[in-house]
């Protein structure tokens, strides 16, 4: 084990998979000469050359489509969106080309591609640069959606995503890039579609992913210390396919559930998870499933207002107290 940042864990995954398979290449804005807008691709141009680390013009729709086209004939592109906000311009190629090609071609043409980049809000980037779209992509059959929270998961899941024969939407977090964690020296992968219990507990299930894992863990600690409530923190890791079994198992044990996500509430990931829980564990629930989400507003620039939009440990604690019917 060695301690590395989330950024470097992703860089290792890119490097190892590019070493492993000559069909894998990285394309996007500033991934090469500039070493990546967020330095995730640092050193890759020097190692693999211009042919496999390709700087693009600002043309999200175009280069996303170039990636899909390359995947149609067997290459394994990794398309970096500088942030997922800009992927709105490319979403037609992700949804109408990448996600449907295998089906439309009657099974002739798989699209082994990874679309990756930071999603969600950072700090004071304003309304157009602070959006979390996981529920949009997870809505679409044909796509897989991954949102790792730790360096270990980031590396292991990105390696799996690159090896997967389907289009994978891989959501990172600008606020996560500098976070540190343990990563094995030896090769490993984390399978897609498997949730991870980040903390065992017995009284309530707190479902999280990506940045909200840290929020859930802080809340769990606070609940233990201040309210003697034992919270089980379940990290979805993959949003689609969703590990419904792991979720239901945990709720059947705790009988209570709070779902936390950074994105907007309406038709968010938590809505789907809550629906499945009440459907599959109806008789186990001692309280309605609660959600803590990003505020239902465009992201304000002001620091104080921005902070108020984000899911906080305090908000999670309050939600847990509600489902536990405490005061």
């Amino acid at each position, binding site marked *: 084990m060695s301690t590395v940042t989330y950024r470097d864990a992703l860089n290792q995954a890119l490097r190892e998979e590019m070493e492993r398979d000559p069909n894998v*290449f990285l394309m996007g804005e500033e991934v090469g000469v500039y070493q990546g807008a967020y330095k995730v691709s640092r050193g890759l141009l020097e190692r693999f050359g211009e*042919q496999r680390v390709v700087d*693009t*013009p600002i*043309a999200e*729709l*175009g*280069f*996303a*489509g*170039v*990636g*899909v*086209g*390359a*995947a*149609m*004939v*067997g*290459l394994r592109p990794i398309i970096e969106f500088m942030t997922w906000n800009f992927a709105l311009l490319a979403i*037609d*190629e992700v949804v*109408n*080309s990448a996600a449907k*090609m*295998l*089906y*439309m*071609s*009657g*099974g*002739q*043409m*798989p699209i082994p591609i990874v679309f990756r980049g930071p999603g969600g809000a950072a700090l004071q980037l304003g309304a157009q640069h602070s959006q979390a779209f996981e529920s949009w992509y997870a809505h679409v*059959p*044909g796509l*897989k959606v991954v949102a790792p929270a730790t360096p270990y998961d980031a590396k292991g899941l990105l390696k799996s995503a690159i090896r997967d*024969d*389907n289009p994978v939407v891989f959501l990172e977090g600008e606020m996560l890039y500098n976070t540190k964690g343990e990563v094995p020296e030896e090769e490993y992968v984390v399978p897609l579609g498997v949730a991870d219990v980040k903390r065992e507990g017995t009284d309530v299930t707190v479902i999280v992913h990506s940045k909200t894992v840290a929020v859930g863990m802080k809340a769990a600690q606070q609940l233990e210390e201040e309210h003697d409530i034992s919270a089980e923190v379940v990290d979805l890791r993959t949003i689609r396919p969703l590990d419904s079994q792991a979720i239901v198992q945990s709720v059947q044990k705790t009988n209570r559930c709070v779902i936390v996500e950074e994105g907007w509430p309406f038709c968010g990931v938590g809505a789907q998870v809550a629906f499945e829980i009440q459907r599959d564990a109806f008789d186990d629930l001692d309280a309605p499933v609660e959600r803590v989400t990003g505020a239902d507003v465009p992201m304000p620039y002001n620091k104080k207002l921005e902070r108020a939009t984000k899911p906080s440990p305090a908000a999670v604690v309050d939600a847990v107290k509600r489902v536990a019917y405490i005061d």
Partner: protein
Amino acid sequence: MAQPATFSELDAERAEFYRHLLRQMLLIRRFEERAGEAYAQGKIGGFCHLYIGQEAVAVGGIAALGDDDYILASYREHGHALARGMGAREVMAELYGRVTGCARGKGGSMHLFDVSRGFLGGHAIVGGHIPLAAGTAFAAKYRGTSQVTLCFFGEAAVNIGAFHETLNMAALWKLPAIFLCENNRYGMGTALERASAVWDIAHRACSYDMASETADGMDVLAMYDSTKRAVDRARNEGLPTLIEARTYRYMGHSMADPIHGHYRTKEELEEQKQRDPIESFRQRLFDEGLLDQETNDRMVADIEEEVEDAVKFSEDSADPDDEELFTDVYRD
């Protein structure tokens, strides 16, 4: 290959090739007529965009390709599929939505695929497949193969962002791609002049410093020659080309749309039909002694049989099993 002074100089092989081009155009014409009938009978559903009038573009263009090259097209691609050598049975069966179709009945008229022939679809979002074509060209360059990508799209697609973003990257990165714009003068009910600030589509290459040419889309040999020049440029120099083919659509935008009306007159249509790519080429072959009545009649009869067989095959074929609804969503 450059076109010789007179056809009398032609060697037998060349004559054979010309008859082959004629046959392909006749096959497409007849196939589309029958598809139209089947649609009118309610045997084919959805959108059905016929290629009648534009046959010379796909036939001449695709004849300039090698077997390993890639082709991408829009939703008006029945003709391109047949010109690429896909069987009338597999194509017609796909229009019928049968499991025997080239996409197992799951793609449909707008999404014909035959990966074994490098026929990479039918795509139904205008301009959406243009970046994909740059991607297959990128892959060929990446692998160092000499494969060329030929991408067909309509003149209305040049006004959409994907066209612009793609042509810039193709020129910047020197990709072996040919962007073949089929200018049939209308995008649905909108004349080129009402949608584009520039009426000379080939001229759009100026923004990308890309080679371009304009070709007579009603002349199968002109299409062959133009495309061949572009193929050589792509294969030998690794450079892209924008070709504008001036052609015309005889039918409505799709079988659900009027053939003429608000947006074009019956007179214009009749006048355009005088340039018919098949009749003019057939006459030429007659005049040059490369085709006699008997050979022509046999060809026509064979095609009639081939298309009827395709229809019968399609009608006799089965729908996909219910399980197929959930297959091919993911590859595991």
